């Protein structure tokens, strides 16, 4: 749910990175954090286990500039990807404005992608949203690894509507900002329509 503050002239939106465990959600955020000017970002908060697996969420606020005199601030969240953290994932989707589904392109993670996407649809429904209506982008991550499935096959399997699809290597930043731009644009377009 977009938060518009007329007093401080701010638009605040919530974007959630979703996907199976170890697909690169936190890596997306880490890259955005590392390459953004200090004046545009807040702290990157990671609630992670001792082995650096996301336990609850990662969070970072990102200021993109002004639209019609309103500062636009995107609050970027990741969910914990591991299957047994489902209750936490459901909570993080509350109030979401846009979703990035980060798919792991490796052949052996295909089942995990499908399971996570199904889980996303279910959890959105539980929060009163519909994947077909909400701003949504599909990112095919880890394109640099040897055992990747061809893009066309991944798209055929994972694309749910006419969403933008971005190939990415989050660890080096390939496709990270294209993905963010794509979802942010949809969120702002939605604001224009509402």
């Amino acid at each position, binding site marked *: *749910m977009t*938060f*518009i503050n007329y007093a401080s002239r701010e638009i605040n939106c919530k974007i959630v990175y979703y996907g199976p465990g170890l697909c690169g959600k936190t890596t997306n955020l880490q890259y955005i954090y590392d390459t953004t000017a200090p004046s545009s970002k807040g*702290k990157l908060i990671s609630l992670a286990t001792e082995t650096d697996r996301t336990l609850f969420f990662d*969070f970072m606020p990102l200021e993109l500039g002004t*639209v019609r005199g309103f500062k636009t601030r995107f609050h970027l969240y990741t969910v914990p990807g591991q299957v047994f953290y489902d209750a936490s994932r459901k909570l993080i989707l509350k109030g979401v404005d846009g979703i990035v589904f980060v798919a792991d392109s490796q052949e052996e993670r295909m089942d995990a992608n499908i399971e996570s996407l199904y889980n996303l649809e279910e959890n959105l429904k539980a929060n009163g*949203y519909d994947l077909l209506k909400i701003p949504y982008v599909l990112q095919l991550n880890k394109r640099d690894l040897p055992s990747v499935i061809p893009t066309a096959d991944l798209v055929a399997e994972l694309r749910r509507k006419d969403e933008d699809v971005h190939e990415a290597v989050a660890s080096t930043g390939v496709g990270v900002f294209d993905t963010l731009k794509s979802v942010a644009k949809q969120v*702002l377009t939605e604001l224009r329509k509402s």
Partner: protein
Amino acid sequence: MTDTPIIMREQQYERIVSVLSKLRFDSSSRVVFLVDKNGQQIAVQGDVSNLDTTSLASLAAGNVAATGGMANLIGEKEFPTLSHEGERESIHICIIGRSLLIVVFDERSSLGLVKLRVKQASRDLSTVFEEMTRDSERKSASDDSLFAGITDEDIDSLFN
């Protein structure tokens, strides 16, 4: 979407700030925040120079969401207040409708005093929120045109 968007007017913002300011004074606390349940900061009063307010707001919302989830599991609707006591600094969180009132206090105050003052402030804030909800539901035509006027170029310029 499940909720109507919250739209806060300047006058309502000023009223919220004055309630927070009074609460901070009456409870002898360090900082008083109001954030929405999604972690968006609405207003803050007090010395925040050494405090990352955005992160605090998002973590408080996560905290409330997590304990709310636990409440549901044991058959409660929610836990309306949460308190975390540290060696020197403590935090008290109170749920007011779709918002969270967060009070950061130290040994100059006490949990009892904070709870008492928060109760009073909650009533005042509820009145403002009811008004905000009514306003948000009937957005004026001028608001529609403000955002309807956003062009693709406006959006693209954010990424240049």
